[in-house]
């Protein structure tokens, strides 16, 4: 207490000094009679004036002084009204300092604090994300219950903010609101659930923190985000990593079965020293013979490993405890090196790390044995570090290293730090009991220490020797004699008591010495310590029972002394002993057994590590350090016997519904892959070179994250990324297979007209019955995709609304010497490649002889354009006709693909130029998503025009018909009659193409196209405009 009052006066002194400095710079400094308490009021008046002033510099000065007061713990609450007025100051530093003040005092001045709320509410809508974030931060830090609803609303809004930084702050605000009003829990959990889905690394740590504080038992909220969290982990900021790792450790222990195998189990069970063998066998038998680790379990272990190399000790420790608690025992070893590295850090880190190593080293010596020397003690280490190191050294001691260790211990015993020297002696004792080979060596060493000059060392040695001798009493008469002599010199009560006890126990082995010792002790009985007196009584009693002839009188003398001792314990003991050993008429049945009672074989003490019982706490926690359960400690559950359903972590087509982006990538989440993924594994080896290609098409930050989060599934679906150069037909097969299985679910195979081609390109048996043309099953698959669109945020490619029958001439029969060719766009995703447009070519033989060997010859394609040709047609009968499929990657442009159509005898130059509307694939999406996407594609990504046409042309069906005739777009269901929306993605890059037709009054309409692909956007606009205007 005294130091505290001292602190107070010192503080105000110091405080004045800094204020003085600031005064000097202030413009309206008063004459300055400060230093006395009475002037404080006056000074505050002055601060108030400065705050009222219209100069920012004066205000700033005042605020700085006020913050100085707060920092020193002085009360500045009376300035609240004057300060709060400045909450809307334009000066950013004044504003910040006002915030500091507000957060500190709002709780005490609730009514006045409310004056500031509107400022924050306004700032929450600011276009600048940092201002929004800071407003939320301060608003949520004001602990005024009245504003709970306002906070709730602000948090909800901020959790949907576009800026991840604002969302991070929303996650922090959740905890603040929860501690202010726990009744909001349910609503807050909803926000947490939403933010857990967030893919930003900024948000992840903060929201998991909120989860841990608000609803740590809602483990179900984690399932769907588990893999994402594992994958994001490396990129999360370090503090977030710690929180997430601890949470995932708990999660893993509830969701996976134990990876600890039988042989590991044994070591694990070592601690259950008294468990019968049978017990153990039962246990191990119960374990399933064949254990396979859940891939999610493996994912966590794998993804945390690199973090062992973090510079942040807390992160390293977090990973270490994760490995300790959830990884297979054979893999735990890798953490030792990292933990040992942390020992070079400051003493606080060393302290915590050593504690954890101490606990680990009890159960698994092997882990740290190679690092034995890292735990050698330096004379400059603080005592607490020294004793922890010593503890670890003891745990690591074994037959092989004990001699080295004992040599090291010798140095420690000589240490000037006597507390540490004493601890070392205890340690030697423990080594002696644990390793029978060295028991004698240790004992001899300890006996040598008995002649040490330092009494503490001698005393400690005596105590330890006592314990050791107790274990093997037979052969140590000499040592006991030696110790008896020590009684003349040693004064430390514990040591004296120990010697007396030893002699008493072994009185029959030292028949000459024992009575003499008793004699000496009787002489000085009254001046002994209580502890020693009790042992003198014991010694007397034991001798009385074994050698009453010599010691009867002595004992009675001692008992008399004890009877009148000041200490009641001693009086009690005296009375008890007298009744028991001295026979008289009243003595009961017990005295017959007195000898048995006093000289019973006593079990040797177990010299144990003080860290023995800490392992039931999760490592790295506060509870483990304190060895008591801290407030808010979350138990680590035992492994479940049977793993809960692992499929809860499956993420269906995550928000990847952003299908239109990298087409290949989006596909991999397609649920249909379940049907064939098994058989596909052999193809997995394909590298993901095309993956990066498709990403580059539209690389936004979000997509990259998406890529990360889907890494886990990419293993079995990477085949989708095959580069085009790789056998395209194989890809084709797969895709057909996929579709096939998909359509199979809903209908029996419906044969399309083109089955022939299909079977040509496909080898896989199950693909045979399927058809490329799904147009016939439109209605069904459409409904399927619609239902999907509801469950997922945005949707995927839908089937075309309308397929025009219009064909284009590829080769006129006149110029083709009788061979005629037409092409048309079936508006289907191409089977040859995700980036290709399907083209069907119908060949007619108008001659009267066979045309043989029809194939595609030389190609002249613009850069980047690719073409998948049809297989050579051996022969075409006269009047015969055949339809074949091709795929052309037009690179989202309307450039012409030129190539040669060849027969056995001739080559004809032909061209395909796609109408812009055929470069699209329809996308099904909700109106909401449409608007959201449209909101992101404004500015230069938007083109629009006005259309004038007769009203009959603006009926919904006419508009729909016209638009889908021109372009392969999907219809977006619209809530408003006068707005029609269509959505598609470009085939090559997957960029969105959003078409809006908004009817205005009269006969005008606005046509708007939003797309990143501004060129084809404007071309499409140009093509649509005349079509829509026509009658």
């Amino acid at each position, binding site marked *: 207490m005294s130091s505290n009052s001292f602190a107070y006066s010192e503080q105000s002194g110091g405080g004045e000094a800094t204020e003085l400095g600031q005064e000097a710079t202030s413009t309206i400094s008063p004459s300055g009679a400060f230093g006395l308490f009475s002037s404080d009021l006056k000074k505050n008046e002055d601060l108030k004036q400065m705050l009222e002033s219209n100069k920012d510099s004066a205000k700033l000065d005042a605020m700085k002084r006020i913050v100085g007061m707060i920092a020193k713990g002085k009360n500045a609450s009376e300035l609240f009204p004057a300060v709060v007025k400045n909450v809307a100051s334009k000066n950013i530093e004044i504003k910040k300092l006002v915030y500091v003040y507000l957060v*500190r005092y709002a709780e005490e001045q609730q009514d006045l604090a409310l004056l500031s709320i509107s400022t924050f509410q306004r700032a929450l809508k600011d276009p600048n994300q940092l201002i929004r974030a800071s407003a939320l931060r301060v608003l949520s830090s004001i602990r005024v219950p009245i504003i709970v609803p306002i906070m709730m609303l602000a948090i909800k809004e901020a959790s949907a903010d576009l800026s991840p930084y604002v969302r991070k702050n929303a996650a922090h605000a959740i905890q603040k609101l929860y501690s202010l009003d726990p009744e909001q829990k349910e609503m807050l959990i909803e926000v947490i659930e939403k933010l857990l889905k967030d893919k930003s690394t*900024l948000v992840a740590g903060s929201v998991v923190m909120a989860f841990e504080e608000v609803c740590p038992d809602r483990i179900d909220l984690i399932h769907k985000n588990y893999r994402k969290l594992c994958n994001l982990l490396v990129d999360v900021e370090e503090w977030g990593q710690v929180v997430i790792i601890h949470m995932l450790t708990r999660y893993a222990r509830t969701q996976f079965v134990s990876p600890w195998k039988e042989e590991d189990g044994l070591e694990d069970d070592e601690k259950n020293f008294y468990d019968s063998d049978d017990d153990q066998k039962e246990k191990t038998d119960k374990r399933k013979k064949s254990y396979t680790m859940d891939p999610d379990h493996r994912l966590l272990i794998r993804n945390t490993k*690199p973090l062992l190399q*973090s510079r942040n000790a*807390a992160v390293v420790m977090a990973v270490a405890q994760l490995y300790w608690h959830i990884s297979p025992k054979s893999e735990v070893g890798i953490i030792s090196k990292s933990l040992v*590295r942390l020992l070079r850090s400051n003493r*606080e880190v060393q302290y915590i790390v050593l504690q954890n190593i101490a606990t680990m080293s009890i159960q698994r010596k092997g882990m740290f044995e190679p690092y034995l020397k890292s735990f050698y003690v330096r004379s400059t280490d603080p005592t607490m570090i020294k004793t922890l190191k010593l503890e670890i050294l003891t745990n690591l001691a074994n037959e092989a290293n004990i001699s080295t260790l004992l040599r090291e211990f010798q140095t420690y015993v000589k240490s000037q730090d006597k507390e540490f020297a004493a601890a070392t002696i205890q340690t030697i004792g423990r080594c002696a009991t644990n390793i029978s080979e060295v028991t004698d060596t240790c004992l001899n060493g300890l006996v040598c220490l008995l002649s040490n000059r330092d009494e503490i060392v001698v005393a400690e040695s005596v105590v330890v020797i006592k314990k050791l001798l107790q274990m093997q009493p037979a052969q140590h008469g000499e040592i006991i004699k030696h110790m008896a002599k020590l009684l003349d010199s040693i004064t430390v009560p514990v040591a004296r008591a120990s010697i007396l006890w030893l002699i008493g126990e072994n009185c029959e082995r030292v028949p000459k010495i024992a009575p003499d010792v008793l004699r000496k002790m009787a002489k000085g009985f009254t001046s002994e310590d209580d502890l020693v007196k009790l042992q003198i009584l014991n010694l007397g009693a034991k001798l009385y029972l074994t050698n009453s002839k010599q010691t009867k009188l002595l004992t009675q003398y001692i008992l008399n002394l004890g009877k009148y001792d000041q200490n009641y314990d001693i009086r009690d003991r005296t009375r008890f002993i007298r009744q028991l050993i001295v026979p008289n008429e009243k003595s009961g049945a017990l005295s017959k057994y007195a000898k048995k009672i006093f000289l019973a074989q006593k079990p040797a003490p177990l010299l144990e590590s003080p860290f023995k019982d800490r392992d039931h706490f999760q490592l790295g926690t506060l509870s483990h350090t304190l060895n008591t359960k801290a407030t808010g400690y979350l138990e680590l559950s035992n492994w479940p016997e049977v793993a809960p359903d692992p499929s809860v972590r499956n993420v269906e087509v995550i928000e990847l519904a952003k299908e239109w982006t990298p087409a290949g990538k989006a596909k991999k989440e397609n649920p249909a892959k379940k049907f064939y993924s098994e058989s596909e594994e052999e193809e997995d080896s394909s590298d993901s070179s095309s993956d990066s290609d498709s990403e580059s098409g539209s690389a936004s930050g979000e997509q990259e994250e998406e890529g990360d989060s889907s890494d886990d599934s990419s293993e079995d679906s990477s085949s989708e990324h095959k580069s085009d150069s790789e056998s395209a037909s194989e890809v084709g097969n797969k895709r057909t297979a996929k579709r096939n299985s998909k359509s199979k679910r809903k209908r029996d195979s419906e044969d399309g007209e083109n089955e022939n081609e299909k079977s040509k390109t496909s080898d896989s048996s199950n693909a045979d019955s399927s058809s490329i043309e799904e147009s016939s099953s439109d209605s069904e698959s459409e409904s399927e995709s619609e239902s999907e669109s509801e469950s997922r945020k945005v949707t995927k490619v839908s089937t075309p609304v309308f397929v025009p029958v219009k064909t284009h001439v590829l080769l006129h029969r006149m110029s083709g010497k009788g061979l005629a060719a037409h092409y048309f766009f079936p508006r289907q995703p191409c089977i040859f490649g995700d980036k290709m447009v399907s083209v069907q070519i119908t060949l007619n033989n108008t001659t009267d002889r066979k045309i043989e060997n029809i194939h595609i010859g030389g190609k002249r394609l613009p850069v980047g354009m690719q073409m998948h040709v049809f297989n050579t047609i051996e022969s075409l009968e006269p009047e015969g006709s055949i339809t074949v499929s091709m795929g052309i990657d037009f690179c989202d442009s309307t450039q012409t693909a030129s190539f040669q159509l060849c027969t056995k005898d001739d080559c004809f130059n032909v061209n395909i130029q796609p109408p812009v509307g055929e470069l699209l694939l329809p996308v099904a999406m909700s109106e909401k998503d449409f608007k959201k996407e449209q909101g992101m594609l404004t500015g230069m990504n938007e083109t629009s025009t006005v259309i004038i046409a007769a009203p009959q042309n603006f009926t919904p069906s006419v508009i729909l018909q016209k638009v889908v005739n021109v372009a392969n777009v999907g219809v977006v269901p619209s809530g408003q009659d006068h707005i029609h929306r269509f959505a598609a993605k470009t085939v090559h890059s997957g960029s969105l193409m959003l078409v809006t037709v908004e009817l205005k009054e009269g006969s005008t309409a606005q046509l708007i196209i939003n797309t990143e692909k501004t060129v084809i956007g404007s071309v499409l606009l140009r093509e649509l405009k005349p079509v829509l205007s026509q009658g």
Partner: protein
Amino acid sequence: MIHSLFLINCSGDIFLEKHWKSVVSQSVCDYFFEAQEKAADVENVPPVISTPHHYLISIYRDKLFFVSVIQTEVPPLFVIEFLHRVADTFQDYFGECSEAAIKDNVVIVYELLEEMLDNGFPLATESNILKELIKPPTILRSVVNSITGSSNVGDTLPTGQLSNIPWRRAGVKYTNNEAYFDVVEEIDAIIDKSDDVSFHPCIRFKRWESERVLSFIPPDGNFRLISYRVSSQNLVAIPVYVKHCISFKENSSCGRFDITIGPKQNMGKTIEGITVTVHMPKVVLNMNLTPTQGSYTFDPVTKVLTWDVGKITPQKLPSLKGLVNLQSGAPKPEENPSLNIQFKIQQLAISGLKVNRLDMYGEKYKPFKGVKYVTKAGKFQVRT
């Protein structure tokens, strides 16, 4: 997580307090003072203390205690690491982490603490971000500020906070672009070393794992890129040796003290900056020594002998000899004191580690690159 922070100086004054949640009374520190008293030595104050309603987690840095108040379970290392980060930040901002510096800059300190934690959870701890938010004080700026009333608060937005590379702010531009590597190796004499590495978060783990290449976007300014440890098997030699003869005569009030230092194997490089520190036994009253080189001091209160040797010239090995005065009548010390040695070898990395090459991608300019090697004594203790 972290509820409050108290800064306490060596004489037990609480000179700064900051609360991130409701205010916790200063009286909670009484438990800390109690523990401090019990520990006797500052180094022995337990870093984690349990009180009836709170837990106190503290660090001791530069003669100051940073005492944080915790209410619920939290990994202690999390708090300790954070507190050290706070101290590092002060050091970075004010050049030293001392009571005077903190008091002089109390407003900046407060602004920093406000940014570093939100509701007790770390928000911005990277020096780069903080410096964008709050400018460090300079003499010039404080003069300008006092005249113009302008502020230390940055008016630009902290871009680093919003990007995926929090350790570097956006748009760093200099006329001279320089990349310097200081390879500092410390020899730890009684502790063995094993090769192990820790990284600044800017290093891409994946590349390191697959190619053993350190690939990174560097922070602007000084930073620790990696820390590594080399195992003793790889370590060639200890560069210095010490000949010592320290003896205390029985039943006499004096003793002899004689140490000589020499270079063992230094690959042609000079060993410099040698300092020997010895914690003498308590019975030593005074020492009368003669150094052949450098100067020595003995503090009779702390019993610490410091010998500032300087450079070793092989021709004449530095030595320090003389008499030790002991308290008369006291038993002679049980053990001879250990010698703690500091030294430096420029232009040498004793492990043989080298910066092989530095490639820079994505920028047009060519930076100036430089590498400097230093080998130092770490915790180098010679038992006598």
